[in-house]
């Protein structure tokens, strides 16, 4: 059973996921529960989905254009980005773009999600992780603390490249190698 980590805690997953394979079901106003569906299903059936009681979410493939969801942000409770292989890093950029476009809700990494990538994923804007089935949730939580300081800005400010007053003040005042 895959573990869901949300806001750095192990939580119950209340969402039902519609597999992108197989026949696409038709949602009806009586369909209950929170549903996570592929972009194509969302595009085709968003009116029905929104007319029912439960919450709605979209799973993006890492080749989908996140721009397509901008106008739907207020109708969605969850956006997930699928990692087909953990070595396929496109999902990181998709997450950065979603955050830049103004997505403030839950951003979930799903698919080949392993503990050793959680630190980077978090810095790209993911706040929820549906771990690959073989991953141990408890030990995965440690990975959020792999590093205490990041060098570059991401969705956070990072260190040193944001005019960090401390790093400027702590440096000696004489310029010894002139970059100018």
């Amino acid at each position, binding site marked *: 059973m895959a573990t869901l980590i949300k806001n750095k805690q192990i939580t119950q997953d209340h969402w039902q996921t519609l597999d992108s394979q197989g026949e696409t079901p038709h949602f009806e106003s009586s369909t209950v529960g929170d549903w996570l569906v592929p972009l194509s299903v969302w595009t085709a059936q968003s009116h029905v989905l929104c007319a029912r009681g439960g919450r709605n979410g979209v799973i993006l493939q890492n080749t989908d254009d996140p721009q397509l969801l901008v106008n739907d942000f207020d109708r969605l409770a969850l956006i997930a980005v699928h990692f087909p292989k953990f070595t396929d890093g*496109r999902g990181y*950029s998709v997450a950065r773009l979603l955050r830049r476009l103004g997505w403030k809700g839950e951003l979930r990494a799903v698919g080949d999600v392993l503990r050793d990538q959680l630190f980077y994923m978090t810095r790209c804007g993911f706040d929820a992780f549906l771990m690959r089935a073989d991953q141990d949730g408890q030990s995965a939580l440690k990975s959020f603390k792999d590093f205490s300081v990041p060098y570059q800005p*991401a969705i956070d400010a990072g260190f*040193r490249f*944001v005019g960090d007053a401390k790093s400027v003040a702590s440096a000696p005042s004489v310029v010894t190698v002139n*970059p100018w």
Partner: protein
Amino acid sequence: MYRYDEIDERIVSERIDQFRDQTTRFLSGKLSEDDFKPLRLQNGLYVQKHAPMLRVAIPYGLVNSSQMRMFAHIAKVYDRGYGHFSTRQNIQFNWPRLAQVPDILADLARVQMHGIQTSGNCIRNITCDHLAGIATDEIVNPLVWCEILRQWSTFHPEFAFLPRKFKIAVSGSEQDRAATLLHDIGLQAVRNDQGDVGFRVAIGGGLGRTPILGQVINEFLPWSDLLTFLDAVLRVYNRYGRRDNIYKARIKILVKEKTLPQISKEVHAEWAALKGGQGTLTREMVDAMAARFTVTAYRSLADVNELLEAQRKAQPGFARWCERNVHAHKVAGYAAVSLSLKRSGVPPGDVSAEQLEAIADLADRYSLSELRVTHEQNLILPDVEQSQLALLWQEAKQLGLATPNIGLLTNIIACPGGDFCSLANAVSIPVAMAIEERFDRLDYVHDIGELDLNISGCMNSCGHHHIGHIGILGVDKAGEEWYQISIGGDQGNRAALGKVIGPSFARHDVPEVVEKLIDLYLTKRESQEDRFIDVVQRVGIEPFKKHVYGNVDKKQTNHTRPLANA
């Protein structure tokens, strides 16, 4: 040199803890081979033919004597007594044991070094001109900018799983000694009419199977926008670079397939959203970074031309060494000195623990404790007082580090090749050594003049054979080692890719072919200054072909491997 502060030290130390944990999980079976592989690669650890190979980053080529001694320590304690300087300003150890690698990394951290991102599909070690900061033709000192790039790229969360490796080189001089046009991104520091610093940005260069020169995507990128622009390039590459074929995954293929104008449009659209935001550099940040570099305590000296002239007259060997291995310095009274790691009987770039220690001593006594690593696999003492050159020459000679061959035929660049590397089709080092043996007469080599000879054991081109005046590439033909020879490649401002002269050769024939190429050159040159590459560019490759292959009917040799560049 850049000095780590407490934060830099903490980041490296946290990395070691992380990797130690990952290694432990791997060895205990909790982490699979596939899941571990990218993790170890991004710590510089390959699994090679005989044992793992650990690649240690030498950021933009700067290294000090205590770091050099640490390399010696690692070579002795964890390896077989030697290390190998690569063509990317790194040092490699070929025989460490996997379980000990975290300990090696901890030892390296004591001297502010690491193996972070020296491998894997991420942004690799930033490389730079080996004369940065001391060159007489410098426009902008690139070192601080290199350090800014090092920090920006280290553990960049978005770009750790790119389609393929990503290499960035920086040059700040008129002469491009960093081969910037052969990198995924090449940055040439320039000034605009107002004197402001900026960068000419080239993208999509590279060697490998599809050698291509980089194309300029931004003629003048203001310094403050350096990181946001690179973020934009990397994001476009990360999203659209090919992932279906490892040989077509570099950014050069994306640029080639989509064309530069299209990529440029996408990069600039992305940059429009990033420009001026987080990651925009301020003067305070850059100055703070600059202030973390050590002071080079130059004495106020004058050039000693007369003394050197007299010493050169008295000792022809010294004169020859000065001509090849001593380089002009921007500070009066100083010179930079190349210690050649290329001498007969030794694999190019290899250096023993004893030599590493002796080199560290030389750096302490002659060069303010600092050294540089060059992409030609030699070392440089950057800050030598001119009056000390003759003494240094004597000592370097005794250590076997004074071969006066920088820029000459025997300064061969070679990858580790099939003796060590599991990717290679053929050996490189024995070929280099056979050529060196054949040209063991120094007078002859000097008479031949400037000539870059580069050898790669496979199409991955770690030996940069495409840009050698003479390039040798190992190819596999029905399980046998063959060598394809090209001529006319060049590096620097006149970067060019060599052309293959014809069907490949058996290993034992290679030295003779090189000799034939040189014979022909000697008959065609108009003066001593007319270099091999000048002659190739003037007369073309046909006369060389004819001289090498004689009147052999080309059709009969068609059974040999088709040309890889075709």
